């Protein structure tokens, strides 16, 4: 009895969450089927038809580019991040504690400022090119290409890959590794047959934590990619901020949600404990 009375305390939150969490998402779904949601509800499938128009696949190309850039960025994060997490996990506990915090710190600097800083590094007359010129090397012009977007993604989301993998690696029971060595496995075999399989949960969290922001970003593509490399996030932003086609914008938001759900479904089979894998500091 007493217990049930206390649960009333959750009521304000439940009401708030129904209005500002549940209802808005339902609204997106509803609006994606409306001709022009600002002027009343007239149902249609036109927005989805427009997006999936195979005779004129402009939007599908953008979706494809977003997925392509996000996959490449995630893969690079994994290739760079796994060895880093592994090296960190092998250090003395005190030292690795300090270092793992240091690796997360840059992530907490305002993310627009970090991206802006890359603009000044990558510019034609920026620091990297001035340096290359000083030592007589050819200039490095990737600004306003999709590689600049990939670089921005890798830079911004690399810690999201390192941390979950690191968290899983430090929890591997040392005696399992010793047992493998006692049974005659060399270090390659210990890694391939014991450590790697045990760390896949962290890899899966890392992938979903990197892929999702990479596939939905519109800031990185706008600042580093210029106009030609618009991603699906840019299209959504445009519908709501400039063209005012809310129905189409909602349809693309639904598509992005489905995409994320699919990606999460794919990785979550490996993630036994998302909460611990996601721990940052």
């Amino acid at each position: 009895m007493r217990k049930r009375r206390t649960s009333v305390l959750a009521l304000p939150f439940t009401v708030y969450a129904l209005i500002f969490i549940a209802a808005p998402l339902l609204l997106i779904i509803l609006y994606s089927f409306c001709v022009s949601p600002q002027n009343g509800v007239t149902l249609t499938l036109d927005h989805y038809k427009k997006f999936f128009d195979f005779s004129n696949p402009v939007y599908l190309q953008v979706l494809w580019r977003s997925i392509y850039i996000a996959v490449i960025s995630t893969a690079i994060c994994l290739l760079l991040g796994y060895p880093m997490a592994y090296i960190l996990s092998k250090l003395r506990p005190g030292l690795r504690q300090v270092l793992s915090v240091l690796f997360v710190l840059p992530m907490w600097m305002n993310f627009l400022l970090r991206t802006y800083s890359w603009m000044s590094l990558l510019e034609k007359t920026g620091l990297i090119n001035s340096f290359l010129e000083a030592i007589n090397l050819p200039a490095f012009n990737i600004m306003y290409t999709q590689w600049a977007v990939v670089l921005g993604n890798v830079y911004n989301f690399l810690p999201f890959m390192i941390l979950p993998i690191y968290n899983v690696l430090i929890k591997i029971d040392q005696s399992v590794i010793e047992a493998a060595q006692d049974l005659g496995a060399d270090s390659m075999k210990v890694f391939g047959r014991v450590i790697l399989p045990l760390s896949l949960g962290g890899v899966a969290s890392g992938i979903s934590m990197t892929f999702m922001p990479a596939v939905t970003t519109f800031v990185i593509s706008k600042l580093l990619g210029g106009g030609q490399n618009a991603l699906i996030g840019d299209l959504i932003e445009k519908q709501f901020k400039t063209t005012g086609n809310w129905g189409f914008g909602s349809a693309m938001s639904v598509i992005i949600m489905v995409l994320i759900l699919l990606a999460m479904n794919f990785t979550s089979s490996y993630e036994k404990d998302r909460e611990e894998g996601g721990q940052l500091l």
Partner: protein
Amino acid sequence: MKFFKRLSYVYSVLIFLFLYAPIVVLIVYSFNSEKSRAKWGGLTLDWYRALFSNSEIMRALSTTVTIALLSSVIAVVIGTMAAVGIYNMRRRSKMAVMSLAYLPMLNADIVTGVSLLLIFSALGLRLGYFTLLLAHVTFNIPYVILSVMPKLKQLDPNLYEAAQDLGAPPATAFFRVVMPEISPGIVTGFLLAFTMSIDDFVISFFTTGSGVSTLSIMIYSMARRGIKPEINALSAIMFIVVLSLLLIINLRSANDAKRTDSRPVSVGARASGR
């Protein structure tokens, strides 16, 4: 073996450089007396001075800080009550309410931002300071719930009942017995919410209007039409502020972990859209 050790050392240094170089560049340039980023003109504090007399930046700063403070305080009140309530719920409703709370953390920021924009206009609210505040409260509450929940789980359920058996009315029992035990979680939740609010761009971008900008929004619009050097100075200051906040959160959870031998709260779920 020694080769691998050296290799891993070099590798760590390189990754470390990659992560810190842009931040160092920003901070160093905040002291550059030359306005262009291409040239170095010697040390100066002019940009810091200019920063504090720039009314546009100062207005954005005050919006950012007041929104962060207000939204964290509101989130702490609603979120702590919610955590206590949810903790005492039956299994089924507990699951339902918790997944509702998790939604904004799992969803992409751009979708959260757009969905809030839709509900605000459906409710006939004019976009501005108030809608910005509502949006920040929405994404902050889950962090408070997630920080308070573990503390409630560690709490001995008999304590609250013992207090009542000794004659304390429920409210007194709560404030005198339960509150002191869960307060570290509440403070961590507050700091986390505050940091998240300061750092947010995407959700604010969609839910503000009529000339109300946070620092992030201002930086975004400036980055496209050319950044003023004052922003470098601002970024140096923001870095120091966030750094100190995080050190505080970290030390707190490290102390907690030592005292109660529990794992610190998980804070990484919000990777979305940033």
